[in-house]
């Protein structure tokens, strides 16, 4: 039996700093996805919401909130929270319902409104909360991205120009993307002239936080064969793995790795896409386009290795060869990535799937990756949430 489900429709609310309620973005994206799918809202049997964290309540319980905003119609409901991996977890819930035969058509929605500046923990004194502790000690998100970046420089000879080149590439990709927040081309010199945030990462190397919303309508393959209005794109694999002991790198929000006294240390990020590939029954060599989480432009280089596009230590040469640009052998972040979007946490993993759906349908316009047949997304959520989705045409 096929373990695939189909993407019937995709939709987004443009990313920006709009300052409006997150439900508005989610509803906009949901209506766009339903229209793209040609599915009437009342036909949806399962709604899966990606939650954001506000005022102590996870997104005002997002699945039901979106359902109410669209009009109560009695669908079964789910809400997922997995930090940056939220969207994939919400999608995995929908896939499981469809594959179990409990429903044919499901809607997955994620949306966020972000505060200005650094993402920060809720108020109060909580020494038992590792996220509170690391901020108390002065370790922001860019601290971690910068530690990984400096490590690449020491281990593999990465340079600040390489990190800048990733930003330049992604900015080129996103310049004509109507859903991107930043649609401006940058030069290497622009990046190198921007203010240092966390040595060696500068302002233009680090992603912003944004408002935005993304939604997918997914269905059984049988339903899609009868009703899909587009070339069918399949979700062939989803990974929501936790880390495996012992961690090789200090992961947010921790302030230490595991001890590798009794077990070998290994990279968490490398295990995330591996599971999605095995779920889909494909390998990294089959991938024609990828959307990865460039929280920093240096982190994109780590992902090249962690999703298997090249061996450890070869990401800089892959970048320098031009292979990861649109028109290259294996384009990465044709949407423009976080460099052009900024992060809207519960929507971001779904936005990655939206982009790959357009790519695999051949509907990506000037961003189109020629002949895209297999796409992979990768990201990682705070507290040990993996996220990777494999799509096939």
């Amino acid at each position, binding site marked *: 039996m096929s373990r695939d489900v189909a993407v019937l429709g995709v939709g987004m609310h443009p990313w920006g700093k709009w300052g409006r309620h997150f439900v508005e973005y989610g509803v906009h994206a949901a209506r766009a996805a339903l229209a793209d799918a040609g599915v009437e809202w009342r036909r949806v049997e399962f709604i899966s919401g990606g939650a954001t964290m506000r005022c102590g309540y996870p997104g005002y319980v997002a699945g039901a909130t979106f359902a109410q905003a669209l009009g109560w119609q009695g669908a079964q409901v789910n809400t997922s929270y997995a930090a940056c991996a939220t969207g994939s977890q919400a999608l995995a819930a929908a896939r499981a319902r469809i594959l179990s035969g409990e429903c044919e058509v499901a809607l997955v929605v994620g949306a966020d409104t972000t505060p200005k*500046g*650094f993402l*920060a*923990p809720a*108020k109060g*004194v909580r*020494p038992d909360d590792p996220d*509170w*502790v*690391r*901020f*108390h*000690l*002065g*370790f*922001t998100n*860019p*601290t971690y991205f*910068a*530690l*990984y*970046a*400096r*490590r690449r420089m*020491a*281990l593999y000879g990465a340079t600040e120009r390489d990190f800048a080149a990733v930003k330049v590439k992604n900015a080129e990709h996103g310049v004509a993307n109507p859903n991107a927040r930043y649609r401006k081309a940058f030069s290497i010199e622009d990046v190198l002239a921007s*203010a*240092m*945030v*966390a*040595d*060696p*990462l500068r302002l233009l190397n680090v992603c912003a936080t944004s408002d935005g919303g993304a939604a997918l309508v997914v269905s059984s393959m049988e339903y899609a064969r009868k009703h899909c209005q587009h070339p069918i794109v399949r979700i062939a694999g989803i990974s929501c793995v936790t880390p*495996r*002991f*012992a961690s090789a*790198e*200090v992961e947010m929000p921790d*302030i*230490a*790795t*595991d*001890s*590798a*006294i*009794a*077990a070998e*240390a290994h990279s968490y990020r490398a295990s995330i896409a591996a599971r999605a590939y095995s779920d889909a029954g494909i390998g990294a060599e089959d991938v024609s386009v990828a959307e990865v989480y460039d929280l920093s432009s240096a982190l994109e280089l780590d992902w090249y290795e962690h999703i298997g596009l090249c061996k450890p230590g070869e990401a800089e040469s892959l970048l320098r060869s031009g292979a990861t640009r649109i028109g290259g052998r294996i384009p990465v972040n044709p949407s423009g990535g976080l460099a052009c979007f900024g992060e809207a946490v519960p929507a971001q993993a779904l936005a990655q799937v939206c982009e790959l759906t357009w790519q695999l349908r051949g509907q990506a316009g000037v961003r189109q990756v020629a002949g895209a047949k297999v796409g992979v997304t990768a990201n990682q959520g705070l507290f040990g949430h993996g996220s990777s989705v494999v799509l096939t045409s």
Partner: protein
Amino acid sequence: MGNLPRAPAIEGWYTLDESRPQLIGSRCRACGTYCFPPREGSCPNPACAGSELERVPLSRTGKIWSYTNACYQPPEPYVSPDPFECFAIAAVELETERMIVLGQVAKGIRTQQLRVGMRVVLILETLYADTQSEKVIWKWQPADEGSPLDAGSAQQRRVDAQA
């Protein structure tokens, strides 16, 4: 300032020994796995059913795995001096424990003075002060190549850094 008593910014994670402070971790009696911050209860090794974690001091020295700095003031609950001062941060590999521990780097040390693989030693410095006490935290301080990491020289460097 200065006359206030010293108190830990976070209770129970390090000794307040003036000359040879140490991080306090946990160690599983069954498989030897260390943890930092210290924890109670079950061993984090999934292959180990151990549930007795004992408090142990961790190595005072290690090698820099990577480093960075904070050029912008972190948000609360970070308590910033006014005006904010950029500080360096290091991820340090502890050889015996086979783990990496983050910490701020001693005041006044810039990233240009750091490199991956450099040996560092644990010191205590003030993170912030309130009306009752100076809240101290562990920090990493570069240790001169080849010099013995004895209490006296580490203490001297700490004093120098504060001067």
